[in-house]
């Protein structure tokens, strides 16, 4: 493998039971870049993140993170690898029984033996980076959606991870929070010298911060390139996705019996 790819995925197959989700996926994420994985709902993007994080094991194919094959690691190895990752979940997934401060302190207290004063300073620095130092005493229930996402982001980068994964970071945010989050994704990535994977279906916002983009459909990569290349792409699915066309490669109608037949307008042979 080439050393400048932090995450390498080749011919990855995965399914829940008999339902295949990923069908031979190839993808690589260069070190230091912000790469986004786009695709319609239910195309397996979140599953892909869970495979990279080692929460799921692939049916076949290879997932390499930092040079290690994730599926071959034992529990300890996996946990060691996860210490180098941070993940932002769709709705933040803040611990509802802990305050904002304790949420950000959680990974430090659980995984390091740092003395409490150091933890305190580090937490305040992380919270300051996302602009929420003043909210340290609040409980997650008292935060707005955008603030919760920022706290979760501070928690995800609490231990300066090398890989940050974002699962739908833009869902359900107002335009201002949206801009704040997308800006933070870029600046944190560059400040930490990390590598970021952003799973999203928000084209407009993510295109501003991306280095490279993969478009997924039905468990495979159907298009890839820089944002500019993607917007100019003439592949039917890519065109429909990036320009929000209603009908196209993905039909508007869910497959069903013939419309006329179902309404009884066309006589069947009875």
């Amino acid at each position: 493998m080439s050393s400048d790819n932090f995450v390498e995925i080749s011919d990855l197959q995965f399914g829940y039971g008999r339902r295949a989700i990923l069908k031979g996926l190839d993808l690589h994420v260069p070190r230091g870049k912000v790469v986004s994985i786009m695709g319609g709902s239910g195309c397996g993007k979140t599953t892909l993140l869970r495979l990279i994080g080692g929460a799921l094991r692939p049916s076949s194919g290879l997932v390499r993170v930092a040079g290690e094959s994730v599926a071959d690691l034992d529990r300890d190895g996996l946990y060691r690898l996860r210490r180098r990752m941070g993940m932002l979940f769709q709705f933040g997934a803040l611990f509802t029984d802990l305050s904002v401060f304790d949420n950000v302190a959680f990974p430090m207290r659980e995984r390091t033996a740092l003395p409490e004063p150091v933890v305190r300073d580090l937490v305040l620095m992380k919270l300051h980076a996302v602009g929420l130092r003043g909210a340290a005493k609040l409980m997650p229930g008292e935060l707005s959606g955008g603030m919760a996402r920022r706290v979760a982001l501070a928690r995800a980068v609490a231990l300066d991870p090398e890989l940050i994964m974002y699962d739908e970071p833009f869902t359900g945010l107002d335009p201002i929070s949206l801009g704040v989050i997308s800006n933070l994704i870029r600046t944190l990535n560059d400040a930490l010298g990390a590598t970021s994977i952003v799973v999203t279906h928000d084209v407009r916002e993510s295109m501003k911060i991306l280095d490279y983009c993969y478009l997924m459909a039905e468990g495979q990569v159907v298009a890839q390139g820089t944002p500019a290349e993607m917007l100019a792409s003439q592949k039917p699915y890519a065109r429909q996705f990036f320009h929000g066309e209603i009908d196209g490669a993905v039909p508007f109608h869910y497959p069903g019996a013939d419309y006329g037949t179902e309404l009884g307008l066309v006589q069947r042979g009875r």
Partner: protein
Amino acid sequence: MVDKGWLTVSGIGRRSIESLLRLGFAARFLGLTLVQSLTCLRRPRLVVREVYFSGVLSLVIILVSGLFVGMVLGLQGYQTLRTYGSESALGVLVALSLLRELGPVITALLFASRAGSAVTAEIGLMKATEQLRAMEMMAVDPIARVVAPRFWAGVISTPLLTAMFTAMGIYGGYLVGVVLLGVDEGSFWSQMQNSVDFREDVVNGLIKSLVFGVAISWIAVFEGYDAPPTAEGVSGATTRTVVTSALTILFLDYILTSLMFRGL
């Protein structure tokens, strides 16, 4: 068709297999919880916190229920014993029924509906909001960090609550029998002390409550962890915790009673 499914032979078979699988997973889950319990020893604060939420917050309902159960026992016992002219045995009746049966069983039932359901809902909600997954991604085992402390808090709280319930109940019986109905105070206590055996009655009652505590805590954390990560899933799991706990408590009570008091 799916709704009627369980009436058919194949439906019954499928359900049986599903329940068997679930039971197997539950057993494996208990094993994992026990293995991951070292964290609780290393960080007792985690357990203390959960004892607060399960035990301390159940205190009022337990004490009030204990008082009233004891008072009812005093009243009913007095009416019955008076017909035989042996009101002085009221203390024995109240103490033995509370120590052997009512204390452990009612406390366990109340604990299951007050604290067990809360634990299920909490863990289920943490699962539904991806908090457990987030923890796993931070290389922290949710079974060690979330499940085990709640399990042990339940196991610790139940016998303590049972002791308080029973003591409260005996004073409730005393209040009604001695203070209100005029049973002789001396014979109330002395007959009780002569008939109640520490090992036979007090310790066996505590063993019962400990077994109930393990059962409730196991059911509660498992239902929470196994809940479908949706609103209906969590509410269904909460209901199942209460129902399964109640049935398990009563079933285990019969088994334990037949083992413990066989010789009497």
